[in-house]
């Protein structure tokens, strides 16, 4: 094995100022030995399709490249002599071959990789210090591979992670163009600090919360600013057992997106055009009765049929990737335009990406990634809003504006403009085969410009209202890691240390203006009454970690690690946090006693801790500045404060196994996890007689989440002409609140959002509602409160299937979520008003003065004038959705005369079919965006989308 000096004495002296300088300027003298080249092709064994983007490398020299669109590669400047060349591609087995390189000559070397979902030598970088092979890692890692992204109908980055990884639950909250969804991994493990996982793009932490809400009661997601066509793969780590090295804030899991990189070779262009339509067939239970129309002659359709339209979607993209010996590039551009299923709903976007990599010296790789995106969204007022379009239509004659529902389209304008920049530079220093270091510097900058206008002379606000809001988020990443690898006989050690700083700054400035001077196109200056609000918040999280990975005979791996963390939101009396981790991975199939039928088998166990920091001001006693006494400055109590406040701490144990059988045709990956969150940050209501009306955060709670995960990949048929496979992903999740401090029952709703509680001994969060005691009695309902069920799914199942027949490829994915409940305010509040179709007959009886002749059940469900109880409308949300269908055809080159490169035509569909007994409009539709509690309140269902795509690679 050839080695080079690790540090020269001159280099050592340059380490003093900072590690950054080390990584930037620590160049070692490149070898001047005689060299040759290696070229070849990487294909999939079986159908021999070229594998694009496979990594081909010579580990001992640090040389490597990626295959082009034909699966071809070329490595130049290879030292003459015998070289071990490795070809790797996620989803395929890793293959290593030896080749003798002659000086000045090019030697050919081809690889045929076996497709597998269990690639133990696949390199994983999320959740582990440095890069590690999957076989070395003791926790489960979800991988979403390029095949999935290319073959399914993916309309957004959120779509890319929907239904593809066990326990990764993604729900679209509303059918509005531009609306973001909810993302949770292994349920809710925080009551107050959010449950969205951390998001990384190419090592750069990005904003993971939804943008501030809109008048549609939906919010856009920063995740959707990433062009899904730019994504190479996605890694998902799920809980504290895997996220320890991310420290505070990581207990909700981590999702890391890797975008495409360039490769050596001539430019490879890909052009793509997609056209699509979206529509909602119908909303609600239907069944408006003749009696209803007789009672309200000329009444509008309750469920908006006269307003629903077919939406149009169009996307255009162009990308190029290529490179030379010491540099590579990937550039892409993408524009999109979308109209919604209701008038005036629209979203358009533009995104640009440039990923550049180069090697200034052989031991240093610099990778720059940058993206800029812009989205413009037109919202209309929907959801829980007195001025809501859907609320007023669906309430029929019992609304705020009688027959004037169209005013919400003509008198309201809501626009959101999003600019999002994510940029990072990674310096990877590989001075020898034993030592490597990596420095990642990143900036995520999101700018959200939102404004809405209720015009002068509008029906409900005749004086007019203008709201303008500017919200920005900057997240800076400094991530430094170094690893030293040593092998002593069968024993290998992999020692890593690292340091990370994440700084997030948020700014929100909002102005509201009322009482316009007159009609026209207003700004904030137009109104005579103006109020402003400004928030500037900064949070810093910094931590050091160390990890030791011990390997024995390349089949037994023990990892021990720890992170020490500080966070600006910790209370004054709170010190640094220590998060330990340990994991064990045992490739038992490498043992001689293991049955050959169980081809590749691995056992893994992991334990780890991570946390979530409290909010910016939770530790301090503060007062809020307010406008008082008609606009004069005043103060009012804000937070009581708690100087001992610290992060909530999640501890997770995970165990599992992976097995392949039948010549790699059947792959089973199973896990069990048990997660405990201690010192959970609870919003404890305050005694209002002590002055503080707002809840105070306290480390007072304890929860558990536990469940099982199963992923099965089965290749049912595999021939040179046809490959047919099925994938099943399933998970169960049970949560329980063990302790809530001094308040064992916390009401999570308000007077308008009943039934939602956190209570000891029950899931977090859960619904309670009235149970009817005398359903058949002709009398007023007698009820008692009872536990109904959890708000989050207790089980998810996703079944996918692919069929490859030469040039024709078909894919489908069906997803089920179940075991959870939701209150449909749409149904309940319409029932109260006598305009819920299943209640029409009862409403007629009440109108006729026959209330006293109705049974308790009828009154419980359908009693108008606010007798109907919400408990009757908390219903199971179990659903099955056909998430994705696609059919793609590679047009033969001879039909194109060689003028269009590789042409692929595809038909796709998304959310095409849903079955559910849920009583409301859609089992995924929710109000209040991404809050802990969920309820539906006149939200729009998720539309079906059909697309036709033409993709050309040339």
């Amino acid at each position, binding site marked *: 094995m050839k080695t080079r000096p690790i540090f020269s004495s001159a280099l050592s002296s340059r380490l003093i100022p900072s590690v950054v300088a080390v990584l930037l300027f620590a160049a070692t003298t490149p070898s001047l030995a005689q060299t040759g080249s290696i070229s070849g092709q990487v294909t999939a064994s079986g159908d021999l399709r070229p594998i694009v983007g496979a990594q081909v490398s010579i580990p001992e020299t640090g040389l490597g490249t990626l295959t082009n669109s034909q699966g071809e590669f070329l490595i130049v400047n290879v030292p003459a002599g015998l070289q071990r060349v490795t070809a790797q591609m996620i989803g395929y087995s890793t293959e290593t071959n030896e080749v003798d390189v002659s000086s000045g000559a090019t030697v050919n070397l081809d690889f045929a990789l076996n497709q597998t979902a269990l690639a133990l030598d696949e390199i994983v970088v999320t959740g582990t210090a440095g890069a590690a092979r999957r076989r070395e890692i003791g926790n489960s890692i979800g991988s979403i591979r390029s095949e999935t992204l290319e073959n399914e109908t993916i309309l957004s980055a959120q779509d890319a992670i929907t239904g593809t990884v066990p326990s990764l639950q993604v729900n679209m909250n509303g059918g509005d163009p531009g609306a973001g969804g909810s993302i949770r991994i292994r349920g809710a493990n925080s009551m107050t600090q959010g449950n969205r996982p951390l998001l990384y793009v190419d090592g750069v932490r990005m904003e993971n919360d939804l943008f501030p809400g809109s008048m549609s009661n939906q919010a856009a997601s920063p995740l959707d600013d990433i062009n899904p066509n730019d994504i190479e793969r996605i890694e998902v780590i799920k809980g504290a057992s895997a996220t320890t090295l991310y420290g505070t804030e990581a207990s909700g899991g981590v999702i890391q997106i890797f975008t495409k990189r360039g490769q050596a070779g001539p430019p490879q262009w890909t052009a793509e055009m997609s056209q699509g339509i979206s529509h909602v067939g119908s909303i609600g239970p239907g069944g408006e009765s003749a009696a209803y129309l007789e009672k309200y002659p000329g009444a509008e359709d309750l469920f908006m049929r006269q307003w629903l339209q077919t939406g149009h979607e169009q996307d255009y993209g162009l990308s190029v990737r290529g490179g030379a010996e010491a540099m590579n590039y990937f550039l892409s551009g993408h524009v999109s335009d979308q109209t919604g299923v209701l008038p005036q709903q629209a979203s358009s976007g533009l995104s640009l990406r440039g990923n550049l990599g180069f090697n200034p010296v052989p031991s240093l790789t610099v990778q720059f990634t940058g993206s800029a995106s812009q989205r413009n969204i037109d919202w209309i007022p929907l959801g829980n809003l007195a001025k809501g379009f859907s609320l007023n239509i669906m309430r029929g004659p019992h609304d705020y504006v009688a027959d004037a529902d169209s005013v919400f389209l003509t008198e309201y304008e809501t626009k959101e403009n999003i600019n999002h920049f994510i940029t990072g530079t990674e310096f990877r220093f590989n001075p020898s085969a034993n030592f490597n270091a990596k420095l990642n510097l990143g900036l995520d900058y999101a700018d959200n410009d939102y404004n809405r206008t209720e015009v002068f002379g509008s029906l409900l606000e005749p004086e007019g209202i203008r709201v303008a809001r500017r919200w920005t988020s900057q997240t800076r990443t400094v991530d430094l890691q170094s690893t030293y690898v040593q092998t002593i006989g069968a024993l290998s050690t992999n020692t890593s240390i690292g340091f990370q700083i994440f700084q997030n700054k948020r700014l929100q400035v909002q102005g509201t203006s009322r009482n316009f001077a007159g009609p026209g196109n207003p700004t904030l200056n137009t109104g005579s009454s103006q109020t402003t609000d400004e928030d500037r918040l900064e949070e810093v999280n910094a931590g050091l970690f160390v990890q030791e990975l011990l390997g024995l005979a390349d089949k037994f791996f023990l990892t021990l690690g720890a992170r020490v963390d500080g966070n600006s939101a910790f209370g004054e009396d709170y010190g640094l946090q220590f998060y330990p981790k340990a994991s064990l991975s045992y490739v038992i199939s490498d043992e001689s006693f293991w049955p050959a039928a169980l081809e590749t088998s691995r056992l893994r166990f992991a334990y780890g801790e991570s946390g979530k920091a409290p909010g910016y001001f939770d530790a301090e006693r503060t*007062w809020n500045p307010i406008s008082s006494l008609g606009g004069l400055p005043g*103060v009012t109590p804000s937070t009581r404060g708690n100087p001992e406040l610290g992060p909530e701490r999640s501890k997770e144990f995970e165990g599992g196994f992976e097995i392949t059988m039948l010549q790699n045709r059947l792959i089973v990956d199973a896990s069990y996890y048990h997660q405990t969150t201690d010192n959970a940050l609870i919003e404890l209501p305050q005694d*209002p007689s002590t002055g503080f009306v707002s809840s105070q955060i306290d480390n007072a709670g304890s929860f558990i989440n536990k469940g099982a995960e199963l992923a099965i990949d089965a290749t049912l048929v595999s021939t040179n002409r046809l490959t047919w496979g099925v994938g099943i992903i399933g998970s169960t999740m049970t949560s329980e609140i063990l302790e809530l401090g001094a308040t064992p029952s916390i*009401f999570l709703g308000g007077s308008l959002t009943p039934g939602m509680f956190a209570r000891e001994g029950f899931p977090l969060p859960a619904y309670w509602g009235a149970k009817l005691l005398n359903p058949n009695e002709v009398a007023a309902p007698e009820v008692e409160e009872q536990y109904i069920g959890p708000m989050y799914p207790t089980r998810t199942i996703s079944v996918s299937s692919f069929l490859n027949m030469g040039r024709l490829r078909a894919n489908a994915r069906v997803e089920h979520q179940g075991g959870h409940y939701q209150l449909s305010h749409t149904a309940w509040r319409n029932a109260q008003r006598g305009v819920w179709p299943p209640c029409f007959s009862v409403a007629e009886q009440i109108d006729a003065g026959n209330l006293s002749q109705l049974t308790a059940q009828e009154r419980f469900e359908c009693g108008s004038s606010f007798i109907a109880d919400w408990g009757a409308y908390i219903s199971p949300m179990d659903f099955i959705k056909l998430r994705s269908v696609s059919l793609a055809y590679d047009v033969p080159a001879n039909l194109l005369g060689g003028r269009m490169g590789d042409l692929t035509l595809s038909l796709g569909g998304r959310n095409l079919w849903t079955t559910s007994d849920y009583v409301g409009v859609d089992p995924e539709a929710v109000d209040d965006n991404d809050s802990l509690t969920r309820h539906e309140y006149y939200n729009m269902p998720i539309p079906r989308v059909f697309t036709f795509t033409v993709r050309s690679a040339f």
Partner: protein
Amino acid sequence: MMKFIKNNMRWPRTAVLVVLAGMATSACDVVNPGRILDADLSQEGALRVLVNGIGGDVTLAYRGLGWNLEVLTGGLTGTSAYDSRIRHWRGNPNALDAEDYNSAWAAGWVADQGIARMQEVLGGEFNNSALAAEAYVWGGIAYRLLGESMCQAVFDGGAPTDRSEYLERAEEYFTSAAEIASAVGNSSLRNAALGGRASVRINLGDWQGAVADAQQVPTAYEWAVIMHGGDTRERNEIFYENQRRTNLNVRYSFFHSYGEEFDDPRADIVIPTDVGAADGSFPQVWHTKYTAAGDDVPAVKGTEMRLIEAEYYITQTGEWQRGLDIVNQLRADAGVAPWTASNQAEAFTALKKERAIVLWLEHRRGGDLYRWGNTAAGDPVLAKMYENVAQSDGHELAIPQGERAICLPFSQTLVSTNPNIS
């Protein structure tokens, strides 16, 4: 590994670790702007905003508790979720538990703490500060609202006590306000203090003290809780929910029929033809008491003082005709026909109606109803509300009995967070 480190990274490693530790420590030292730290308020320059804040929290308490009080005492009818009767009378423990409702208790605490902080900062100057008098006035109004509305009192997380302690705290604050206002020669603050104390004393049974205070306040005088149309926190909710969102309605209340019978500018109504209530029902009946979201809500006014005097004569001295004359003088001033009465009971009924009209939508009915026994038989406003309930075939509402009928309970939040309350 260790050998490698020893050979190659000994002192650079130390330097790097020192740098990193320093970066970690300093990087986490962040101060965010916007909020005001508690200690920063204990300076003389901050006292103006502190007193403004006390007044601002009284505004919030009026805003949050006000519309509930009107709906529960017959001043307005609520539509949909704003019908507090539906939830409160049916015993829903969360019926009156919104943050705005809880702000009534917070307003009292804020006044207590603000006054104590001012005493500490100003020292001997406190008793010669108009700001102190103003703080006392706002504190008195906050505790009067609680004392007139709540079934029991609780202070600063302590044990429940009799509701009269709220009124006694209000009387104490108004007394201090009057003394300081007199000392600094601020007649407006003095009138507010005396008028406020008079209104409290009638509910404490101190009629002679009340009348003595009331007689010092001119009929035209008014001290108001300040509203601001441009700020949701300070918005006049009685206007906004009646004439904008239409969740509060005058329909079917005593004032609906009164407005149709009398052309009284103090309780006038308008019935628009093109606007329905929030639930789509018609008519939506508007009041004209507040015509903008920034209209202030009177808290102390001379016309109430005259009614205190009138009630004193009718109920305490037996001079019911003298009392009725005072009532009718107010009506004459408003250009409205007088009430007639032939005996003390009829004069008392006339007084009840007049107080309801004069103080309509000012959130004061709780004290009156508690003082009068809160029975429909003796109160025309309640009688109309109960008649409406009986006619509303869908409501199935039982007229509440016991304390729930005559005063408001602790909020569910207060019950669940105060260990002294069972």
